[in-house]
């Protein structure tokens, strides 16, 4: 099964990437954008029998390595 771990900076934590991207989009002519935030996504083939187990494995990996819980939040979803 394949899970996707989405990792984003926590609310309130400065996001220099998102700031720069928002600025660049505006310069390119995409005006009126609100907040832009940048994050990471990691897709992993996990050896799970069912969705629940897959999500659990994804969460464990996120907590242990993929997300830096000091400044980041994550969500996990099954993609296939």
């Amino acid at each position, binding site marked *: 099964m394949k899970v996707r771990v989405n990792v984003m900076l926590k609310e309130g934590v400065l996001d220099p990437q998102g700031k720069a*991207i928002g600025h*660049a989009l505006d310069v*390119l002519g995409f005006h009126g954008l609100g907040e832009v935030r*940048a994050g990471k996504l990691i897709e992993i083939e996990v050896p799970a029998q069912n969705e629940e187990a897959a999500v659990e494995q994804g969460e464990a990996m996120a907590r242990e390595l993929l997300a830096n819980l000091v400044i980041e939040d994550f969500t996990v979803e099954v993609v296939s």
Partner: protein
Amino acid sequence: MKAGIVVFPGTNRERDMAQALRLVSGHEPQMIWHRETSLPSLDLVVLPGGFSFGDYLRSGAMGAHSPIMREVKAFAERGGHVLGVCNGFQILTEAQLLPGALLRNASMRFLSQDCFLKVENAGTAFTRGWSEGALFRAPMAHGDGNYNATTDVLDRLEGEGRVAFRYADARGNVSATDRRSNPNGSLRAIAGVLSENNRVCGLMPHPENLVDPDLGATDGVPLFKSLVESLVA
């Protein structure tokens, strides 16, 4: 030779480049702010190293969309000579003035070390100061220098003599899988490439940092000598 150096917000090797051009050509290059919408009359446009716009999305991506790049493209289309070093190379690929892309180094770390480059095509305005197969030392300092392109593109580049430089070991041996001589993991150990007309050249390492005998090495001088000799009208 009239040279212009494009400065983006976050560019940080423009002074190094200016020093090298000054030293070898005897002329002071012009600094060109990225928001300019026209270029002065120039023989050479240089895109120097750094972190344009922080390189926060992809290295060179935002720089490639700066207003001045429209002018740089037009300059290249008119047959002008453009040199991109490090971030400049990344910007040239993002702007599709050069083929391929520069991915994160295979080690996932920033690499700051000397490497050896082998001159693969000594018939261009950038390389004629060397002989074919010549080897020279240059420092690299980048996080995203892993050259990547499809097999078709790579074959074409090789077939047309558009690989300018490859990473090699101190004896000139090239091996794409040898992490010591090709530390960023570039496909076919490619360190620098040329455009179809051989007038746009991008490379990752920094010859401009090895031009001053007072600082102990002059390995990068032939690049600038080549340009001066080729471009002095």
